[in-house]
């Protein structure tokens, strides 16, 4: 499991990327919001309950998937973490290829290493970006729903084989 930033990162196969990219581009925002909101709600329920997302109230973070050219903005309204329509620039924009985000999700690589190696970019409000990073780092996997944990375990196995 020793994935080192700086080496070639395990990437999803090109056909999968094309499919997902096309899906994201053609999906209207209202549908994205409808699909993602309940998903975000179950995955991060503990964080909301603990008040760990309060720093995101009325702030916007954007996750920019560079290989898809797609950007997702998120905010917290006090009860739920939801996608928001990109009516203004987000306070902080975190950018990288999809494989970088997958590595971050599975905690296979240190985020700072990816940032130092320029595979991850943070622009805008650095304090907010760091708060997001620290919040994600502090998530105990045991807080996540079982299906999420299983998905992460599967992704880790694939990453080890694909590396």
């Amino acid at each position, binding site marked *: 499991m020793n994935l080192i930033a700086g080496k070639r990162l395990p990437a999803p196969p090109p056909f999968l990327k094309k499919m997902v990219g096309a899906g994201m581009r053609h999906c209207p925002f209202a549908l994205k919001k409808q699909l993602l909101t309940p998903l975000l709600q179950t995955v991060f329920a503990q964080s909301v309950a603990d008040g760990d997302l309060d720093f995101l109230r009325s702030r916007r973070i954007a996750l920019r998937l560079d290989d898809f050219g797609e950007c997702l903005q998120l905010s917290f309204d006090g009860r739920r973490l939801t996608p928001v329509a990109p009516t203004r620039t987000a306070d902080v924009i975190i950018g990288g290829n999809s494989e970088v985000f997958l590595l971050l999700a599975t905690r296979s690589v240190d985020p700072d290493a990816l940032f130092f190696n320029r595979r991850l970019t943070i622009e805008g409000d650095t304090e907010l970006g760091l708060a997001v990073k620290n919040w994600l780092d502090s998530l*105990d996997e045991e807080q996540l729903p079982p299906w999420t944990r299983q998905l992460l375990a599967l992704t880790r196995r694939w990453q080890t084989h694909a590396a």
Partner: protein
Amino acid sequence: MELVCPAGSLPALKAAVDNGADAVYLGFKDDTNARHFAGLNFNDRTLAQGIDYARRRGVRIFIAVNTYPQPRGWSRWQAAVDQAAALRVDALIAADIGVLGYAAEQHPHLALHLSVQGSATNVEALKFYQRNFGIRRAVLPRVLSLAQVRQIAAKSPVDLEVFGFGSLCVMAEGRCHLSSYVTGESPNSCGVCSPAKAVRWQETPAGRESRLSDVLIDRFGAGENAGYPTLCKGRFQVGDATFHALEEPTSLNTIDLLPELAAAGIKAIKIEGRQRSPAYVAQVTSVWRAALDEFARNGEQFSPRKEWMDILAGVSEGSQTTLGAYSRPWQ
């Protein structure tokens, strides 16, 4: 030698414990410790869980209350010391004389370690802290050469802990004012060097620019590794040249020196990085555990493995890892 690992969060603590740390060090969610970043550190719930997790596996817990309080906030530092004592942690790491005095008087059973921020670089300083506060251990500043470390260890009245791995800076421990010069806040009294709210990164055609309170600290061209903008590690124009006038961004890696450090009588190796991720802690702890175990088996025949060095290089800030101040051939 005891392996002392950083824990900025509960997952990081578990990563340290699971990968073979002998002790973990952590802080509360406020400015009583020198890693006061949003979202970092432990609240009451994660503290209780973390301490329980570590204890069940025989791993010791140190709590850092190592910043310098101002008169107005003093009750916060008292509360932090009281809480550490109530939790019956294995040691409190402190630097300020008032904090040490309060802890020694109010909680005589609480073991005290002198933080690196206390900057004790000679035997007389160590004797002073031991005589007045009963410290059991001191963390040596990273500005001493190996020869100096040996000299101090030979006469030290207390156990010594040294940094073995992590980011380096100008290391004016407990005294650095570069951050407050630019941002108004220093690690000494506010618990943070180069606070994130003063930091800006911008991707420009010329490269990635890093700024601290709008002062341009560095510009990284394509292929150059970037870093967190601290004033000491910036590149500045001096005359006709632009270079790292104060300090080069490098990381410390002393695996090569394990035999020498053990021979000098060092009791513990400290890993820097409470602000780093669980992945960092897992990788660094497992490498150092393997190194210490191999040293214990092979003694003088000990030789670091290439895969260890590769893993450590992968999570290091800057372009290289060095022996830092330990190597001073001119001495």
